[in-house]
C-alpha cells in the first residue's frame, strides 16, 4: 500500500487528520465540525457507497489504483456509523459495500492466489473495486460534462408563436382497429357495463338524429318534407318523427310553421353550440351530393 508510505511515521492517516493550531485532531471525520443539521444534509448528498468511497479517496488524495483498503475501509465504516447516528436511513447498498471492503481487506492479508500462467501478475483482490470506482468516476464526470453544456430551458429557450388557428386540429389518422381494440379494453377492465351495449336496430333513431344534424349543418335550414324518405315506408316516417322530436326536446334543432298546414322548416337555434361549423367544409360537399 504505497500511498500510506506518504504518511509520516508515528501518525496514522496524517493527510486525513484535521489540525487545530497545527495540532492533529484524532477525531474523525473532520466534517464533524459543521453543525449537526448541516452535517446530516451533507451526508445525505452522497449518491451511494461508490460516491462516498470516491469522496474519501479524492479527499485524501489517494491513487485509485493503489487504494489502501484497510484505511479506506475504516473511514468508510466511520462515516456509516456517523450516518446511522444521525438517523439517516442507509440503503442496503452501503452495508453491502462495507462487507465487500472488509472481505477485500482480509484477502489482502493472505498470500496472493496463484494464477494459471506463471508470468501473469497475481490477481489483486482490489481489482474489481478499482474497476467499479473508475467507472463511477467516469460517470460523474460525464454527468458534469452534460451539466456544463448549454441546456434548453436553463441556458436558452426555444421561442414560439401560436400556430394558426386552423392548424390546431392537425389531422389525426382514423384507426378503426385501434378504436375497436380500445373499446374492448374498456369493456375488459369492467368499468364499462356491457349491459348498455348498442343495439342494432334496422332503422336507428340515433342515426337519423345524426343525419338531420348533418343536413342542417350544411343547409342551415330545411323543410320537413325533405327529411322523410318515401322508400322507408311507415317505419321510416316514425323513426324520423321521433328523431326530430328528440332533437327539438334537447334543443339541438328548432322548427317553425308559418301558416297552419304549411311547410315545416327545421333550423338550428341561433345560440346553439350544435352544428358549429367546425367541419362544415366537408359536410357542405357531402350534403350537396345527397
Amino acid at each position: 500500500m504505497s500511498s500510506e508510505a506518504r504518511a509520516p511515521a508515528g501518525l496514522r492517516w496524517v493527510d486525513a487528520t484535521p489540525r487545530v493550531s497545527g495540532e492533529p485532531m484524532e477525531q474523525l471525520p473532520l466534517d464533524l465540525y459543521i453543525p449537526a443539521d448541516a452535517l446530516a444534509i451533507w451526508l445525505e448528498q452522497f449518491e451511494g457507497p461508490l460516491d462516498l468511497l470516491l469522496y474519501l479517496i479524492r479527499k485524501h488524495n489517494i491513487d485509485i489504483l493503489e487504494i489502501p483498503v484497510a484505511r479506506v475501509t475504516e473511514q468508510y465504516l466511520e462515516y456509516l456509523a456517523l450516518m446511522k447516528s444521525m438517523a439517516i436511513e442507509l440503503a442496503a447498498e452501503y452495508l453491502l459495500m462495507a462487507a465487500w471492503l472488509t472481505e477485500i481487506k482480509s484477502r489482502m492479508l493472505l498470500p496472493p492466489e496463484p494464477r494459471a500462467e506463471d508470468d501473469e501478475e497475481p490477481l489483486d483482490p482490489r481489482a474489481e473495486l478499482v474497476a467499479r470506482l473508475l467507472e463511477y468516476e467516469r460517470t460523474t464526470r460525464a454527468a458534469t460534462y452534460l451539466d456544463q453544456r448549454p441546456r434548453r430551458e436553463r441556458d436558452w429557450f426555444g421561442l414560439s408563436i401560436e400556430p394558426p388557428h386552423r392548424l390546431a386540429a392537425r389531422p389525426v389518422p382514423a384507426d378503426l382497429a385501434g378504436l375497436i381494440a380500445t373499446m374492448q379494453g374498456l369493456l375488459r377492465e369492467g368499468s364499462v357495463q356491457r349491459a348498455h351495449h348498442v343495439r342494432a336496430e334496422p332503422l336507428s333513431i340515433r342515426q337519423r338524429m345524426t343525419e338531420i344534424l348533418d343536413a342542417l349543418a350544411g343547409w342551415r335550414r330545411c323543410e320537413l318534407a325533405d327529411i322523410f324518405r318515401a322508400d322507408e315506408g311507415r317505419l321510416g316516417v316514425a323513426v324520423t318523427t321521433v328523431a326530430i322530436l328528440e332533437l327539438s326536446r334537447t334543443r339541438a334543432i328548432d322548427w317553425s310553421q308559418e301558416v297552419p298546414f304549411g311547410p315545416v322548416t327545421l333550423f338550428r337555434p341561433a345560440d346553439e353550440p350544435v352544428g358549429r361549423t367546425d367541419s362544415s367544409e366537408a359536410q357542405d360537399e357531402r350534403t350537396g351530393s345527397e
Partner: protein
Amino acid sequence: MNEPVASEPPEGLVELVEALLLACNEPVSVETLGVMIGQETSAPLIEAALERIALRWDSHRFIELVSRRVDGQRVWHLVAGAAVAPYLKAADPARAPRLSRAALETLALIAWRQPITRGEIEAARGVAVNPQIVKLLTERGWVRSLGVRDSPGRPEMLGTTRQFLTDFGLDSLEELPDFARFAGQDDIDV
C-alpha cells in the same frame, strides 16, 4: 386600462416582454408578466410595452399580437396568421399526430354509447375528461354536441358525426361491432 401611461416604456422592457411572450408556450396576462418582471414595474408600463410590441408586429404579414379574454382574464400572445397554415401543413406529414389513449377511449365511448355525457365518460374511464380531448375530437370533425339532456345540470350529450363514419370507413354506426354478442369471450379478433 384607461389610466394615462405612467411613462414611455424603456426599450429594454419592451424587448423583455417580447422575449417572455415568445418564450411562454401559453398566452400570458399582464399580471403574469408583472410577476415575472418584478414589482417595481407597474401594470400600465407593461401595457404600454405590449402596445409598442403590437405596433411593431402590426406591419408583419404573418405574425400579430393578439389579446383575448380567457376565464375573464385578458391574455396576450403572438400568433401566426391563417396564411401560414398551408405552409406548415406542407411540412413533414410523417409528424402526423396519433390519438392518445385517453382520446381513443373517449372517442370509443362516444361512438358506442352515444348520446353520452361527459359525466358518463368520466364514470366509465374513471378519470376526468380533459376538455382538450373533446375539443380535439370536435375539431377533427368526429364528435359533436347532440344537445343537452333533460336532467339536472342539463349536461351536454355527445355523439359522432357523419365525418366520423366516413373517416373510419363505416357506412353506419351499426357496423361497429356489438360487443354484447361477445360477452364472456375475452378476445375478439379485430
